[in-house]
């Protein structure tokens, strides 16, 4: 059993590490944490229990928030007296399908339309299959139009609600 800064009296469990990681918000979408986002894949203790390796995977190849998330993880766990190592893996590739319904509800409450399930339409660039209906996070109308596939961050697209006349962002299906 690994031990933290309080010495032998407070063994740190894997669950406790996961709970600490759940306190770190996504720097660009602070309504959800990095575990809910799906970027933390595994937590592995070193054999002597003095260190922990956090396995992470990036959302988009060039996501600038990735570095911030890595630094936040290091800071959070170092404060517990642990040696922290971050390992980046690319396979399996991050997908929005890993988000739970609860996480999606948090996104909606924050004003971001949650990602629809991955479909064929998302997998072929010239597909003519109609996009899944996008719901306005403010008035729940599906009478919405795509403004741009690219939004304020790599993971979002811009939409407009034709019912309540509000622009809104969709967390892109990925």
């Amino acid at each position, binding site marked *: 059993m690994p031990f933290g800064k309080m010495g032998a009296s407070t063994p740190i469990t894997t669950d406790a590490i996961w709970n600490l990681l759940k306190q770190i918000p996504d720097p660009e979408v602070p309504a959800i944490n990095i575990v809910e986002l799906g970027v933390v894949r595994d937590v592995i203790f070193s054999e002597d229990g003095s260190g922990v390796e956090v396995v992470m995977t*990036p959302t*988009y*190849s*060039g996501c600038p928030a990735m570095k911030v998330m890595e630094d936040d993880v290091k800071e959070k766990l170092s404060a517990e007296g642990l040696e922290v190592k971050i390992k980046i893996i690319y*396979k399996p590739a*991050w997908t929005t399908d890993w988000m739970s319904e609860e996480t999606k509800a948090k996104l909606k409450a924050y004003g971001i339309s949650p990602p629809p399930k991955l479909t064929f339409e998302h997998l072929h660039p*010239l597909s003519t299959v109609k996009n899944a209906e996008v719901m306005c996070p403010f008035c729940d109308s599906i009478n919405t139009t795509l403004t741009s*596939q*690219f939004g304020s961050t*790599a993971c979002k697209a811009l939409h407009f609600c034709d019912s309540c006349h509000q622009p809104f962002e969709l967390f892109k299906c990925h």
Partner: protein
Amino acid sequence: METNIALYKYCVRIADTSLILAQRMCEWCGHGPVLEEDIAMSNMGLDLIGQSRGFYSYAAKLEGKGRTEDDIAYFRNEREFLNRCLVEQPNTDFAYTMMRSFLHGCLAYLQFRTLVKSKDETIAGLSEKALKEMTYHVRHASEWIVRMGDGTDVSHEKVKEALGNLWQFTDELFEMDEVDQTLIKSGIACDLSLLRAEWDQMVNEVLAKAKLERPAAGGYQSKGGFNGTHTEHLGHLLSEMQYLPRAYPDAIW
């Protein structure tokens, strides 16, 4: 050819192509025709920079000389860059930019889709992510090409001119040499000649929708970017891109 040497060169070719196109896309930042497109082009540039970082880091590791991804990106000269010449062509106007992204993007999409099954796990992983991104890029560019081609007389002329002038860089997208042959044998690289038919199909489909005529075969075709022979535009691009780290080699960010 030794597998590791081939693999290094293979990764640098992919990374250089992504990085140079990223630099071109980011040149639009603050100059886009409308705000949404300005943001879109920087977004795509960012995806491409991310893709190049992954492949540069892997190349640096394979090389084993202690260089970093930044060393490879910023401290090589024009003749050492192994990108396809198509991506170094200037932005010119929005029609050129979209046509360049489309012609390159279709191949990148097909290439990454094949590399997802590469026997090299790092390449397979990096490709899986890049594939999803290229799907969005191709969709975006193809929609604009249809809109411009089937739009006004002016937009049609502009996108037609872009197609005519960029077409000479399309055969080069499929160029291969012993680097590819070595890695194809070991199941790591993808045989680009096998992607030609599907690339043609994708291009023909979009051009038909855009009411554009595909340029006739047999015209002049540029060659050799992937071995360091470039058009006059790359040197100027590099002098801007590499200025800061060359002027201040100890700068960190």
